[in-house]
């Protein structure tokens, strides 16, 4: 068959079947014939091909090992292709050796064809791999990178060392600062372990207890506690370490400290705890409270003195109600008896003298009674309870009925609220203010008095006291009060008129003021001469009952 026909025959199905059927046939002349069986040439080929095959077979094994070791390698598929290509190449060389003596050229051709496919595929893959391969650093490049990395590592280590040194410096500086702080604390500070050993003290501790630092450190805390308290104190300490907690200053009992010279002084201790590496330490703050104790006892002394003098004042009221009035009654009684019994024997002038003497005694008695009333307004027991202020107004008007009638007064009121007050005391306030309004009337027009109340958020108007409550007003059309007397009239025995014009001892408004103070309220006045006055008083919603000053009322 001619060439073209042969190829055409070969590629037909029949040709292919024929080819594979005769794949292992040795129907050609062995290749050795071409070398004329010259042993030198034969062995050159055999040795070379065998070595090449051996080398080619070893390469995939090495690659296999490499791939196994480097599981993460990105180009595994290429290595597999490359391995297969080399195995195929090795096999073609083995076939060359085989075919020196045999003539299975079909098999050799097939193997070459497989090798060709694999090698072409690998070659194409290699070309496509170039961009990736280009990125793989070369050894020198890696070397360079590595050395750069190394120098960076070195630099970092250097920096780390520097930082450590700096931190150490800072730590030392911080410690020194902390020490300075501890030293500067104006109160005693100490650290104590649970066995009672002193671990730290500051300067103030040295000053306070008279021991030097060396005498204190490592010693027992007991040395700072008076003998008689030591066993109790170690009990306290044991309990504290069982359940350590922060105890603020002033939260515990006042304790006693013992100085080196044996003298004692009152201290206050605040406690906290520090968990150090070597175990729990109690941190104590020690304050010398000698001065505070002195001030406290001074206050107590002054207070008891005040209580005593208040009690004496209360007793004065009692004395005034009894013992001062007795002799006065003698004077009055016997003068009047004299006047009565010796009427004919005493002339006009004598009778007049007796009259003045009696009048004086009676006025003195009234003064004493008013003084007594003032004292009682401040000291008598009061009970603050809800009460309808209208009933108090009515009671006051009833008590004043004679004066109202005689003065021709008209007393009216607006709606009056429920308040918290002492009934008796507040009735007296209404009575005093309405009574004054009638007393200090003008001749004409007839007295008109109006009482009203209004809720105030801040204790009303410009004179407000900042308290929420009811502001009552008692308005009259009387003679009025000059502005300069607005404060004075509330003073005790303060009078703006002579006894001939308006009788009275000048105690009524002082009593009123005292009663309102006891209710936590106040009284003030607005007035215009010749037009009238309005007295205001505040009763707070929640009367902050000022009964602290009240002495236990002595017998009155």
């Amino acid at each position, binding site marked *: 068959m001619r060439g073209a026909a042969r190829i055409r025959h070969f590629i037909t199905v029949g040709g292919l079947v024929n080819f594979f059927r005769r794949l292992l046939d040795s129907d050609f002349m062995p290749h050795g014939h071409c070398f004329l069986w010259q042993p030198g040439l034969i062995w050159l080929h055999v040795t070379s091909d065998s070595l090449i095959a051996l080398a080619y077979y070893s390469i995939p094994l090495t690659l296999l090992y490499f791939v196994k070791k480097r599981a993460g390698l990105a180009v595994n598929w290429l290595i597999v292709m490359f391995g297969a290509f080399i195995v195929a190449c090795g096999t073609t060389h083995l076939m060359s050796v085989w075919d020196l003596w045999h003539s299975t050229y079909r098999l050799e051709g097939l193997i070459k064809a497989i090798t060709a496919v694999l090698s072409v595929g690998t070659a194409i893959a290699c070309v496509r791999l170039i961009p990736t391969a280009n990125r793989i650093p070369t050894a020198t490049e890696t070397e360079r990178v590595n050395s750069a990395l190394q120098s960076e590592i070195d630099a970092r280590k250097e920096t780390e060392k520097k930082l450590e040194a700096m931190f150490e410096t800072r730590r030392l500086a911080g410690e020194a600062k902390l020490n300075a702080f501890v030293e500067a604390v104006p109160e005693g500070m100490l650290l104590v372990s649970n066995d009672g050993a002193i671990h730290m003290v500051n300067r103030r501790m040295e000053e306070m207890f008279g021991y030097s630092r060396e005498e204190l450190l490592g010693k027992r805390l007991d040395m700072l506690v008076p003998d008689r308290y030591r066993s109790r104190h170690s009990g306290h300490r044991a309990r504290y370490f069982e359940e350590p907690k922060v105890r603020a200053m002033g939260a515990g009992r006042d304790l006693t400290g013992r100085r080196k010279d044996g003298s004692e002084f009152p201290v206050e201790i605040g406690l906290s705890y520090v968990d150090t590496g070597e175990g729990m330490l109690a941190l104590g703050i020690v304050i010398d409270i000698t001065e505070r104790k002195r001030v406290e006892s001074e206050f107590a002394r002054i207070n008891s003195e005040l209580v005593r003098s208040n009690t004496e004042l209360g007793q004065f009221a009692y004395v005034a*109600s009894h013992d001062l009035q*007795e002799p006065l*009654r003698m004077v009055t009684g016997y003068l*009047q008896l004299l006047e009565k019994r010796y009427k004919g024997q005493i002339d006009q002038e004598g009778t007049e003298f007796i009259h003045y003497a009696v009048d004086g005694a009676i006025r003195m008695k009234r003064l004493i009674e008013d003084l007594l009333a003032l004292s009682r307004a401040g000291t008598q027991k009061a009970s603050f309870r809800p009460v309808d202020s209208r009933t108090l107004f009515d009671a006051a008007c009833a008590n004043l009925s004679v004066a109202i009638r005689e003065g021709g007064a008209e007393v009216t009121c607006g709606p009056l609220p429920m308040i918290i007050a002492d009934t008796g005391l507040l009735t007296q306030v209404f009575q005093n203010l309405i009574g004054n309004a009638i007393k200090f009337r003008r001749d004409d027009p007839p007295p008109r008095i109006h009482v009203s109340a209004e809720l105030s958020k801040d204790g009303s108007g410009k004179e407000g006291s900042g308290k929420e409550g009811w502001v009552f007003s008692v308005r009259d059309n009387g003679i009025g009060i000059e502005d300069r007397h607005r404060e004075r009239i509330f003073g005790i025995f303060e009078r703006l008129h002579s006894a001939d014009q308006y009788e009275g001892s000048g105690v009524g408004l002082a009593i009123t003021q005292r009663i309102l103070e006891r209710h936590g309220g106040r009284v003030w006045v607005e007035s215009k001469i010749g037009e009238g006055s309005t007295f205001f008083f505040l009763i707070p919603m929640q009367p902050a009952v000022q009964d602290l000053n009240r002495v236990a009322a002595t017998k*009155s």
Partner: protein
Amino acid sequence: MPYSRVHSNPIEVLLVEDNPGDVRLLQEAFKDGQFSGRLHVVGDGEEALAFLNREGPFEQAPRPSFILLDLNLPRKGGHEVLAEVKKSKDLRRIPVFILSTSTGCDDIANAYDLHANCYIPKPVDLDKLIQMSQRIEAFWLKTAVITA
């Protein structure tokens, strides 16, 4: 036994008062007020109880129709005398009138708590004192009835 307002015996009154000036003034006022009774005067609480119990120098003392009792007394105070009188079975029906300068609420309340029959603040004015004696007579002797 039917009672009689017309006492066959004179009305006996015990006045317990330590101040001689007061005693005299009261005596004068009672005289001026034409008080029909007879005033027996003792100066302190112990004497008052001795008089009422007819002890010591008061063995012959009459049983008073009523007692005028001051509160401020030496040795034994008026409140104590009042308490003892009102505790005694024999004496407790005798009306006791407290006559005191004090107008203190506590004194007044105390007196009534101890069953005083009335509490009279001592008047300052002579006329009022005379008036008082007349009113005591008018009420206690002529209006009310007391046991003998």
